[in-house]
Structures are given as structure tokens and as C-alpha cells.
């Protein structure tokens, strides 16, 4: 099904990596090695990373069971859970919100992981397609599932997903879906299908996401293309339609999360947007609405993975086990307000009462059976197809 082979990872073993390094820097590296100020001077300022011994997997790295470093997205966990985890396990928990863009983060870790050096975090939270890429590059290690019994609480539709067919490398952190976000006051009517985005009165007032899989996925579904087995060829009609709408000026721009203020002000009549964003925005602006298009929406997940060479594998396992307990998962979901991957969260929310109980009935957190049928994940792409699609998608954006 998915062309998702585990390629032998180049340049991750020290022997090869040294050669690459030398070629990469050239003589300048050697000449300036004389500036031995480097390590000793700045080590005093606090070291940021460790270097792997050659040929190491997690087994060779000295494990620190007392502290955990999780690099995740902003506003993805509540403070109470962080504090409770520390209290209940005695593990010093460093949770940061430095993971804010998959490509940016990849560019920051690539110089290290490609040379076989470890990065600092024990857990990172790549979106599903990036997790797939990291698995293919051998930059993440198998989860110690024997230490994560609560993993059995994983929602059935997320077990052995397309990006991790054996389920050994990732556990979803939160999920969500992409659909049509619109400003009811500006549009004057409810929107229900992708065709609504192309209405002439919205010319220049439509935004789409720069996240390729959500934008192309939604458009492809509206053209009846199966996105669970995507190829560059099968998605060509979607690319063509997108290019046409950009050319005609129907689509004004591609956005990241920053479509919010334009949507709120009516500068965008409608966008392709994310469920959780609108859940929040609608509190400030009741005109902000979200709809899963009739042709279907795209389901995405942010995952937890353990990078190769991490020194907190056991602590990471404890954390994953902790957050897959429905009680803790419910507390997190009440704050984050995205789709929790853990079974039983809906009931726990009801038990919590008050605002949290109301969330149990929120369709953006718990899509109905009917809506769920309409949601699907973008399948894994082969490396060639991914490169081709990324390039074509960028061209449409003007790059």
C-alpha cells in the first residue's frame, strides 16, 4: 500500500558522518578548530546537546531516568498536568513550546541527526507526515511499548496508522481536522461545500493553508480523488484547480495559523482552516464558524516520537503512559480542545462537570459518527511523490 519503505539511513553512523562533515565544511573547520575557545568557553554557559558515541542506538546512551524534555507545540498541554506528572512520578519535566513548524524544526535538527548526533529533547511532536519522514530516515527509535500499557487506550481508528504501519514508533498526541472556516457575517450564509469557496462574490477573500496535505486533500476530496493512496499523478487535478483559483485571484493567499485575524475582521470571507482554531476564535467572535465540507475533511494528528539517541527513554515512556490514562487525557483535552486520541475521554469530561462537560458535546472535539465517516487522513507519499508535490505546491504559491 504505502510506498513507505524503511530506507537505510545514510550518514547517521559516525564513520560516514565524519567524512560528510569534513566535506561539508572544508578546511575552514580545521583552521578554526584552533579557536579552541569554543567548547570550553561556551560549555560554561550550559551545554545544549550531547554527542552520540559512534554507532549508538538508544541502548548505548546513558539513560537519565529522572528528567524528561518534551519539545511540543504551543498551548498543547495544561499546566496542571505538567505539575501533576512531576508530582506523581518525581521526574523533572521540561516541557517547551519550541515546536511550531514542522519544516523549521526539521531544518534545526537535520544538521545534528544527519550526522548521528543526538538532539536534546526526549520526545518531540511532529505532525504525522513528518513523523513518517523521520521514521524513514531512522531518526526516531521504537517506543518501549511494554512500558506503556495505556497505549491500548488508543482510539481504534488511529491504531497502526498509515504513517506508522507497525505502530511501533509513534503515539498520537492530539488530532484535529481541517475544513472550511468562515465568517458568517461576511459570507451572509452558511457554507457547506468546497464549491462555496469558489463563489464569485468571495473573489480575493479566500485563504487556503500552506499545509499542503490539508489544502490539496480537501480540494482532492471535492474532486472525488482518494487521498488515502495519494500519488503526484493522482493529485494533479487538485493542483490544477488550485492553480486556477490562485491565478484568477479567487484565492488571495496561503496562510499558516495566521488566518485568524483576517477571518475575524472579514478580510477573509472563508478559509481552509483547522477545527481547534475556530473553537477558540468563536469565543471572541461568534461569527467565526467551521464546517466539514460535504465532500469530506482531512484528519491530521500530531504525534509523540522519541528521537534516536535520546537519554530519557524510560521517562518518556512513563509520560506517554500517563497521558494515555483517560483521566489525564480528559484534563488535557479540556484545555487544548482538539481531538483526543484516547478512548474514554468523553465520559471523563462529563464526570468533570461544568465547562468541561459541555466540551463532551462539542462536535469539534468529538465529531459525530456521520462526520467521522467524512474525515480521512492523507496517506503516506513516496519520497519522489512528496518532493514533486512539495515543488508543485510551492510553485503555485509563487515560489
Amino acid at each position, binding site marked *: 500500500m504505502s510506498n513507505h519503505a524503511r530506507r537505510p539511513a545514510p550518514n547517521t553512523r559516525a564513520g560516514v558522518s565524519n567524512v560528510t562533515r569534513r566535506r561539508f565544511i572544508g578546511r575552514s573547520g580545521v583552521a578554526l578548530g584552533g579557536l579552541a575557545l569554543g567548547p570550553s568557553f561556551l560549555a560554561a554557559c550550559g*551545554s545544549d546537546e550531547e554527542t552520540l558515541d559512534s554507532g549508538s542506538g538508544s541502548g548505548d546512551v546513558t539513560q537519565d531516568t529522572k528528567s524528561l524534555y518534551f519539545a511540543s507545540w504551543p498551548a498543547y498541554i495544561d499546566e496542571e498536568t505538567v505539575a501533576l506528572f512531576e508530582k506523581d512520578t518525581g521526574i523533572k519535566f521540561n516541557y517547551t513550546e519550541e515546536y511550531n513548524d514542522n519544516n523549521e524544526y526539521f531544518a534545526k535538527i537535520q544538521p545534528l541527526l544527519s550526522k548521528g548526533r543526538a538532539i536534546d529533547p526526549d520526545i518531540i511532536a511532529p505532525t504525522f507526515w513528518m513523523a513518517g519522514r523521520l521514521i524513514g530516515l531512522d531518526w526516531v527509535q521504537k517506543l518501549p511499548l511494554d512500558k506503556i500499557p495505556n497505549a491500548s487506550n488508543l482510539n481504534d481508528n488511529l491504531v497502526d496508522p498509515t504513517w506508522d504501519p507497525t505502530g511501533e514508533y509513534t503515539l498520537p498526541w492530539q488530532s484535529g481536522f481541517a475544513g472550511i472556516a468562515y465568517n458568517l457575517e461576511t459570507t451572509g450564509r452558511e457554507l457547506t461545500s468546497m464549491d462555496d469557496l469558489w463563489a464569485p462574490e468571495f473573489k480575493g477573500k479566500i485563504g487556503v493553508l500552506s499545509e499542503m496535505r490539508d489544502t490539496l486533500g480537501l480540494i482532492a476530496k471535492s474532486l472525488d480523488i482518494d487521498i488515502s493512496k495519494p500519488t503526484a499523478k493522482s493529485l494533479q487535478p487538485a493542483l490544477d484547480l488550485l492553480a486556477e483559483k490562485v491565478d484568477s485571484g479567487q484565492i488571495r493567499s496561503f496562510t499558516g495559523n495566521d488566518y485568524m485575524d483576517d477571518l475575524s475582521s472579514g478580510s477573509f470571507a472563508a478559509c481552509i482552516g483547522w477545527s481547534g482554531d475556530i473553537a477558540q476564535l468563536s469565543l471572541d467572535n461568534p461569527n467565526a464558524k467551521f464546517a466539514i465540507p460535504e465532500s469530506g475533511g482531512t484528519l491530521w494528528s500530531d504525534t509523540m516520537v522519541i528521537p534516536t539517541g535520546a537519554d530519557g527513554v524510560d521517562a518518556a515512556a512513563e509520560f506517554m503512559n500517563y497521558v494515555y490514562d483517560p483521566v489525564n487525557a480528559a484534563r488535557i483535552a479540556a484545555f487544548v480542545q482538539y481531538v483526543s486520541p484516547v478512548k474514554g475521554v468523553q465520559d471523563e469530561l462529563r464526570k468533570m462537570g461544568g465547562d468541561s462537560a459541555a466540551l463532551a458535546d462539542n462536535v469539534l472535539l468529538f465529531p459525530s459518527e456521520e462526520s467521522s465517516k467524512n474525515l480521512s487522513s492523507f496517506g503516506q507519499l513516496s519520497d519522489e511523490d512528496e518532493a514533486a508535490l512539495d515543488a508543485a505546491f510551492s510553485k503555485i504559491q509563487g515560489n
Partner: protein
Amino acid sequence: MSAQKNRGKRSLQVISALVFLYLFAPILWIVVFSFNDPRGRYNLNWSSFTLQNWLHPFADKELTDAFVTSLQIAFLAVTLATVMGALMALALSKFRFRGSSAVDIFLVLPLTTPEIVLGASLLTMFIDFDWARGFVTIVIAHTLFCLSFVALTVKARISGFDWRLEEAAADLGAGPWRTFSRVTFPLILPGVFAAALLSFALSIDDYIITSFNKGQTNTMPIHIWDSYKVEFRPEVNVLASMILVVSVVLLVGSSVMSARRSR
């Protein structure tokens, strides 16, 4: 003649007021919304007036930490860049020497480099040197891109100077330090001051280069940009307004002091 000059002065003052209005238009919005009490996480629509944000501006610990870090970094980077840049400007303006045009071009080059490339190249270099990425590397990066701004601004000030003033001081018996502090420095000071202001603005608002070289340290623009994906809190407006207010107060204070001194 005088009436014409007065009319010219008046119209210039009107234009200046308009330009100031243009410069401050977004600031007014920012300050107004610092008094908003948003119902959700996005401070984008006016909901109701509150003083709470100003009473508890440091409620968001991470934002406050990032705020303090940004100020520390800016202070260091501005100082380093201003000193080094002013020295370079002095050297290039005062002396004719072989290689001065090469240095001129060398100074302009960092400005021409796209930020992402500069950021990523620095990152790669720091990794290869095994330097931990954090506060120090951010300061280095900020100093780097401020240096050219400083040098060019101070040069604009110095150009056309009559350096015989310095020789005259020396002839009168002043040592090199006295000559510098009594003659040269006061003359270049407005240029240095302006360069420092511009550098501060550059440092306090840098995203891309900082993002690549920050390790785990967080600065305010990083925090604001990253958290914007999920929230846009009024504390951001409050802290931004605070920087503005404090800067204005400092400027007024120093103006009053120098006005008194010159009397």
C-alpha cells in the same frame, strides 16, 4: 520673505505631525486593545474594558521571561554593535588607507544576506564548533546584523567632518583620550545614539535569525509568533505598551537633563 519662511515652517510641521500619526497609528490600536478583556484566546475583537491586564501584566510567566530575555539580549547586542560599529565608522571616515573600499563593501554584505540564510549558516557553524545554542549565540547573531546598520549610520554623521578640529585640540596640548572625549565623541554622539536606537529596534523584533540560533532560550518575538497559532493575549499588548512607555519616559528624562545642562 519671512512670511514665506513661516509658511514653509508651518507646512513642514503639519507634514511632520501627519508622519508621526502614520508612525503611531498601529501603536494606538495596540494600546487600546491592551485594555480589552477578550472572551477567548484571541485579543482581536473588542469585548469589554478592563484594567486587569495592566494590573497583572506578568501573569503569563513564559511571556514575561521571554520579555526579560529580549531586553537583556538587546542591551548586550546594542552595546557591542554600537561600540564596534562606531569604531569601524571612525576608521573608514577619518583615514584613507589601502583596503578601505574593500572594508566598505564588507560592511554592506551582511545587510544583503537573506535572514534565513544567515540564520541557518550561523546555526551550522555553531553546531560544527560545538557551541551550545542559547543566550550567547543569540547575542552574537544580533550583534552581527546590527553592526552594519551602526557603521553606516555613524558614517552618515561623520562624513564631511573637519578633522582639523582634532589636530587643533592636540596642538593645544590635549592627549588622545581627552581629544576623543571632548572633541570627537560629542560630535559623533547623535550618530551613535541614532544607531543605538535602530539596533535596539532590530534586536527586539528579530525572529528568523533568532529562531535558528536560540537553543532553548526564548525571546519575545519568538514567543509572540509561536503562540499566535493558538492565542493572542492582551498581556502581549501590555508588555509592548510598557516598552514604549518606558522608552518615552527615558527619552523625556534625558532631554530634560540635557536641556538643563545646556542652559
